């Protein structure tokens, strides 16, 4: 077992846990955007930063990825942590101040009007959709393209992906509503913003359409592979 001190509170946890996991188990609140417990840590949104007293002094580290080390002192509410989170949220507001999740974080941290603005965008590049598609679905139909400020989430060549199995996981994990599913006619849906259009089958019981045949085929294939 590993013993560490978070905000003055002694916490005993199993090795191989991250600071975020240990903190949440003990009811210590650390905000996150790009973290999902079913996915590998990504450490990109920087909202989960905490101060850790490392060999190189007090350092801001991403708690979602930093391991619990025996004897580590961690501060989740220090001035440096709060200032870092405030600036991160202010920067996210530059293009996504209209997103409810971001506004809620801004209110929580007391961030007012952002001093810098860019073109409006629902996507905050948390990468949950890409990672879920890769790590959970195992398909990798979407990816990040471009670099820096030009970075976007997209299928290859920015056209509807034909490796997509139409499972809708990306829509489900997207925290900002940047990826949506829309009914276009009875029995067909489209995924925005990539205009991936697919047929859906109706439920025999209630009559609502709920599944894409491609997804059921994929699942059936997986099931076959797992038959001994």
């Amino acid at each position: 077992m590993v013993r560490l001190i978070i905000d003055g509170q002694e916490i005993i946890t199993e090795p191989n846990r991250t600071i975020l996991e240990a903190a949440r188990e003990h009811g210590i609140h650390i905000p996150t955007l790009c973290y999902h417990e079913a996915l590998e840590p990504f450490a990109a949104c920087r909202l989960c930063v905490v101060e850790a007293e490392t060999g190189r002094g007090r350092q801001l580290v991403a708690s979602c990825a930093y391991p619990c080390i025996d004897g580590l002192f961690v501060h989740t509410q220090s001035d440096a942590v709060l200032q870092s989170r405030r600036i991160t949220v202010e920067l996210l507001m530059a293009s996504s101040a209209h997103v409810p999740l971001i506004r809620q974080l801004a209110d929580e941290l007391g961030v007012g009007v952002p001093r810098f603005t860019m073109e409006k965008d629902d996507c905050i590049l948390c990468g949950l959709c890409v990672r879920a598609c890769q790590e959970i679905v195992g398909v990798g139909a979407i990816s990040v393209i471009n670099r820096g400020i030009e970075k976007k989430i997209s299928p290859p060549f920015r056209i509807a992906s034909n490796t997509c199995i139409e499972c809708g996981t990306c829509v489900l994990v997207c925290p900002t509503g940047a990826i949506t599913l829309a009914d276009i006619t009875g029995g067909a849906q489209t995924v925005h913003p990539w205009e991936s259009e697919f047929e859906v089958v109706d439920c025999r019981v209630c009559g609502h359409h709920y599944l894409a045949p491609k997804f059921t085929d994929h699942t059936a294939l997986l099931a076959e592979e797992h038959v001994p």
Partner: protein
Amino acid sequence: MSELRNPQALVDYCQKIRATTDPQQRRVRACDGTGCRALGSRKVLARLQETLQEAGLADKVEVVPTGCPGFCELGPLITIDPEGISYNRVSVDDVPAIVAKTIARGEIIDGLVFVDPVTGQTIIHDHELPFYTRQMRRVLALNGQIDPTRIEDYIAHDGYAALSKALYAMTPEQVIEEVKRAGLRGRGGAGFSTGMKWHLCRQSPGEVKYVICNADEGDPGAFMDRSILEGNPHSVVEGMIIGAYAMGATQGYVYIRNEYPLAVQNLKIALGQAREHGLLGKNILGSGFDFDIEIRVGSGAFVCGEETALMASIEGKIGEPRPRPPYPAQSGLWGKPTNINNVKTWANIPLLIKNGSAWFASVGTEKSKGTMIFSLVGKIRNTGLVEVPMGISLSELIYDVGGGISGGKEFKAAQIGGPSGGCIPKEHLDAPIDYESLTALGAIMGSGGLVVADEDTCMVDLARYFLKFTQEESCGKCVPCRIGTRAMLETLERICAGQGRAEDIEYLNEIGQEVKRSSLCALGGTAPNPVLTTIRYFGDEYEAHIYDKKCPAKVCKGLIIYEVVATLCTGCMICARNCPVGAIAGEKGQPHVINPAVCSRCGVCQSLCKCDAIVVH
């Protein structure tokens, strides 16, 4: 060539090469590096070979295309042995005279030798050039001496002797201990102890381990790593084999950018030759140790110089950094223990092992041992590649080695460490160049890029330039770097355009600090440095831009106007005819007038005016 199967075979081979080399042989060493090639050295070399052929001297004179000897300012460079007569700015038309006079008769051609711009003294021999006498060339010693495409040249200079020593006279632990004792620190930027890094990688459990050479040099104005790989690739290969032996790695990679074709080519040749000679691959030098190296060519993303992004790129993934820990020594390439060192670090290893840690540590400061290689660029007289002892002062580097500021101008600042580094002002010219001092001044040692700014450089514009680079190169994974650098850049662009606001300096400082502290990797962690240091040392220039709407160095286009001094203008009409936007009006023989509303501030008129009648306000 048969493989060298034991240490004695290597010694014998070295002796054999030396025995067939006559030191009194007439040789022409011609720089064939990228810098001199850009200045036309390939044509000079071809003409030289033709002319020697015509003169019937082709079999008496050996022509050696070498790597960069460093004095790029005066290229193309050639040196004629055995005297070591150094000619600079050699053109194709100079070749017949060089062959007829110097090569055939040993006569010196006045117009081609170096004349000291300060003392007016003529200097004939390369080893007497002040540019070299003030340096301490260890890693660069063979650059400009040997043909990098011939392993024989390297072996004749004790090449691979250190590898032989490591494999047969030292245990892996002893090699690591020696590197630790030497105090060698990573030459790629962060300056972590190389021996400690090797130790951690060796200690890491695992059958498969990797070593990587980081040759993804990408800072504007930096060409240290390129020049070593072009001019002496075997030194890097030898260093990597020794490292692999010490850490127990069986596979190595050199990650090099595609924009360095000559370095890639020379490295490929070197790897092939090392394999042919039994120095790379299976059973190296008959020792039973197996290790091979592959080249991975990067596509020019600056962020791929960051070690975790570099490894992702080698794995075929998107070049994005990941959080550490785990460090590469624990879980690196494909999850295996991995050690990454910069080109210069690897190139130091054979020298360190051959000459011992005491020799290595005999120069430098308490915490920064050995030498450091810098590429001197910007407003400096001796643009080029230099190697100096750690701890040398900035003024010695800039004035004694670099020859001072070009055009007799006043020094203003030195940007050390490339776009991730910081600006060091005049007040700190006496500061010693070592890892700790530079960090204390807000700069970093970085990989060795040094850009000199003079009185005509606007520091706000310089910060804007470097930040534009890092902002474009940010991978965009983490929020502070992706959006923060953009927010800072737009603020700087506004200030340079004359629309600065009172709160801008505070905003830049605040966001800059946060980008530094909160970013995922060192790219964001250092990107604000040029902005933060210029604010720290040249705050008055920012204030002049914001409050007085003036650019003191007269650089920022939004804050200057071009004007004709009526009393000096002869009305020759040259400016009016050449103005690309038609902003200049005036009759022939009458003083001209520039319309500031139309003028694009390109400066063409000023550069063409024969009577200095155009001034900038």
